[in-house]
């Protein structure tokens, strides 16, 4: 079979795949162009920096969700998990601050990570060992996380100790060479995630489990372990997002993380990851998160949408973004 791997067809094929993956970036570009036409301020460095920085939380959490979703799962609990981790972290830092001073901050970060991983482990275990539909299982833990933090904080509001506030502030408001730290963090997370998903054995297995559980099982892959790990990665990502989030407003409140799960899933899907599993797109997810934040920003910067209709216009734009994404796949 000398004719097997002929060069031209291969090249062509790649090209078309390339376009398919470009979908979310095209949608993003279209949005930026429209934004500029509507209000040139949209492209001011300041505005862009703000918006992209804001999108960092959703992006980081959504990168975790890319693993869960491409392995065939779903996690509705991320929003309340974020609130829970934020709360636990602040409570912990406030408790130790009097004795250890600003060393409370790195310690708090470690606590946040451990908490996130534990939450992910819980979700993963219920889904795999309990064999419960992820939608329902994580809807359950969504209530659990939210209630626990409300309980621990008597109503859910807990502010970071004044003595720590200034030391911690740069994690959200600081920058390195002009690039805001949350952007750097989310880029780092995306780089690591893309590496893990595309370049490691784990990533291969994760996608295989999502594509066809039986094939994975017959290939000697422990479906349970892979799925649980995906939820643990999700938990760690939520923790990282929480760590960046705390200095922004310095508090966990009952509304922290509310409805983030929907934004997260939307970002992942706009980014080109298949909701049924078997296909994950880390950079697409990041683009998806930025798209969502841009849409919200545009709603404020443009003058012609009644405040009542903002949600409708957002809905329409999301659907259009998906259409652009879809169409570019042909």
């Amino acid at each position, binding site marked *: 079979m000398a004719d097997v791997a002929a060069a031209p067809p291969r090249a062509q094929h790649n090209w078309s795949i390339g376009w398919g993956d470009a979908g979310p970036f095209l949608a993003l570009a279209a949005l930026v162009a429209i934004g500029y036409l509507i209000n040139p301020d949209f492209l001011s460095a*300041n505005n862009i920096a703000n918006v992209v920085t*804001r999108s960092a939380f959703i992006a980081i959490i959504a990168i975790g969700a890319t693993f869960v979703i491409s392995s065939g799962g779903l996690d509705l609990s991320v929003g309340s998990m974020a609130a829970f981790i934020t709360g636990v972290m602040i409570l912990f830092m406030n408790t130790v601050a009097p004795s250890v001073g600003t060393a409370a901050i790195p310690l708090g970060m470690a606590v946040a990570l451990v908490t996130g991983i534990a939450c992910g482990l819980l979700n993963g275990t219920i889904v795999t060992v309990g064999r419960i539909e992820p939608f329902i299982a994580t809807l359950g833990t969504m209530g659990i996380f939210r209630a626990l933090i409300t309980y621990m904080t008597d*109503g859910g509001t807990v502010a970071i100790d004044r003595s720590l506030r200034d030391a911690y502030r740069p994690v959200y408001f600081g920058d390195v060479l002009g690039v805001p730290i949350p952007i750097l963090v989310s880029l780092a997370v995306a780089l690591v995630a893309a590496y893990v998903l595309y370049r490691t054995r784990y990533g291969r297995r994760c996608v295989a489990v999502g594509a066809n559980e039986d094939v994975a099982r017959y290939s000697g892959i422990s479906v349970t372990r892979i799925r649980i790990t995906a939820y643990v990665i999700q938990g760690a990502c939520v923790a990282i997002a929480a760590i960046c989030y705390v200095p*922004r*407003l310095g*508090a966990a*409140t*009952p509304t922290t993380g*509310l409805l983030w799960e929907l934004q997260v899933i939307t970002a992942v899907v706009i980014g080109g990851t298949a909701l049924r599993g078997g296909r994950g797109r880390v950079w697409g997810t990041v683009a998806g998160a930025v798209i969502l934040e841009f849409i919200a920003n545009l709603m*404020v910067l443009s003058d012609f949408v009644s405040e009542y209709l903002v949600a409708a216009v957002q809905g329409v734009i999301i659907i259009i973004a998906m259409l652009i994404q879809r169409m570019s796949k042909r």
Partner: protein
Amino acid sequence: AEKKVIAVSIPAADHGWTAGVVYHANAAAKEINKAFPGIEVIVKTSPSASAQVSAIEDMSATRKMDALVILPHSSEELTTPVKTIKEKGTFITVVDRGLNDPHIQDLYVAGDNIAVGFNTAKFLVEKMGGKGNLVVLRGIPTVIDDERIKGFQDGIKGSDLKILDIQYANWNSDEAFKLMQDYLAKYPQIDAVWANDDDMLLGVLEAIKQSGRKDIKFALGGNGMKEIIEKVKAGDAMTPVETPYPPSMIKTAIYLTAAHFAGHAPVRGALKLDAPLITKDNAEEYYFPDSPF
């Protein structure tokens, strides 16, 4: 004698202010249950209007209820169900968000939302010499939100204060932070900001601080949140005043209801908590360090 049962039905803690309500309601229940052996207070929170209707139905179906203290999720949806309870002879105390039919209530305890908006507006008109550019953040579409906005608009009427923009931020500090960032990007000159609740003001202040902009002279809120009162006490230049709208009104209402049963004279009528401007001088009276709000 049988215990008198006071049921308290309030929204679940879904933002800072309601968290304060839950805190004060639980505190009142504990204190009263201890202090008055003849009275039992039970507190139930509900995450939505329909859940709240269900909760009061359930309580009245399964136990005798001598009084109901209710902070309705929304006026429209709770009016009929509360009326049904009233018809069974239960004493009704309504807090904050009124019912559509005021004849239902025996006792009404509330803040003055019009005044919250109006007094803040008057302060701005005076301090800014009657002119300047404003941006406003409003909460969740409800009567309370509407009233505050209306009070504010009435307050600036006749002056040259101009509202550049007004958008919903759902009484949520995160959304307020983002919205304020966007306002700052959109308007090169903003003289003052009003967020119609303090949860949102926290986000606004953070956004202003980050922008480093110097044009904003005032950023005001409303509700009497602890952190904001502290600013007022400290003579903060940007937030020198505040209007109270204390979640502790629920506690007041529960105590008044308990007094109706434990006391010697029946308690009835309406108690409207004033919303005067809190300034550096009187801030101490409005400061409760132990409250979560």
